[in-house]
């Protein structure tokens, strides 16, 4: 008769795979649609940005943390709360610049690349570039203009995956009409 139990296993695990596989299918489609890796990187960043501006609201609603006091606190919150919440991992915050306006997130494993091997001839592809866009979009919504990019990637043979975040400027609320 009918089978007992959920043969699909741990649903959270399946969801992780669903995301990873969907992302993989998307990147494959973009590689087909665009002429070169730079354009694919750009699209991924743009799509990530659009996701980030929505994701931040979901994050703020769930994490219920207040505004960060400085960039160091922001770095900590991204690594320990946000990455943990959405990807189930905690990157290491490191390589701070002397001015304290730049740091790196070091990832030992990357769920986005779990089943992935970079096809030959795509050495300039930043496969996980959507992450940069998500971070950029999310941070912009909390008034921080930040430059985000990959500097190391295990997919390309590096020992670790490193995302670099550089603070550019603070964005201000709109001033009402007729005031300044």
């Amino acid at each position: 008769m009918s089978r007992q139990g959920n043969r699909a296993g741990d649903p959270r695990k399946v969801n992780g795979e669903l995301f990873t596989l969907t992302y993989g299918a998307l990147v494959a489609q973009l590689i087909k649609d665009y002429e070169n890796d730079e354009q694919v990187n750009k699209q991924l960043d743009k799509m990530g940005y659009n996701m980030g501006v929505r994701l931040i609201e979901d994050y703020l609603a769930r994490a219920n943390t207040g505004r960060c006091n400085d960039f160091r606190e922001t770095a900590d919150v991204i690594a320990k709360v946000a990455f943990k919440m959405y990807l189930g991992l905690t990157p290491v915050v490191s390589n701070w610049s002397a001015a304290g306006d730049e740091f790196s997130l070091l990832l030992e494993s990357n769920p986005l690349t779990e089943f992935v091997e970079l096809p030959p001839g795509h050495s300039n592809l930043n496969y996980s570039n959507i992450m940069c866009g998500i971070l950029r979009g999310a941070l912009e919504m909390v008034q921080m203009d930040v430059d985000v990019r990959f500097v190391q990637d295990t997919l390309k043979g590096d020992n670790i995956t490193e995302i670099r975040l550089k603070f550019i400027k603070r964005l201000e609320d709109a001033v009402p009409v007729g005031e300044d």
Partner: protein
Amino acid sequence: MTIFNFYLFDRHGTCLYYAEWNRKKQLTMSKEEEFKLMYGMIFSIKSFASRLSPTDMKEGFLNFTTSKYKLHFFETPSGLKFIMNTDLSVGNMKDVLHQIFSSLYVEYVVKNPLCELDQPVTSELFKTKLDEYIRGLPQFPIKATS
């Protein structure tokens, strides 16, 4: 106790949503003018408060009371401003405003791809859910007149 009205502004000063319940007196000015005034007032009070107390701004300003009404304010770190006017007998509404953000705005606007985040909310579902939520609050009078 009663709730008069509700405003939601984004960080650009756009009024994303407005609703009213037990608001008896109608204004002579247009809604657009009223939104501009409201955003301007909130903006001024915020900067006034931050100048008075530049070090402790985690919470910011929460509410103020006049002889006729009480204004409640909640702002997310993303600059969404939730504003509600009630009568004087209503206590702290911070949790209510937070709930509108986390359970209604995020669920029915942010997670609805057909709602643009910088445009006024057009979702009927959000409108219905908010109305249900407000009418179900203990601060909303049992015998609704509107």
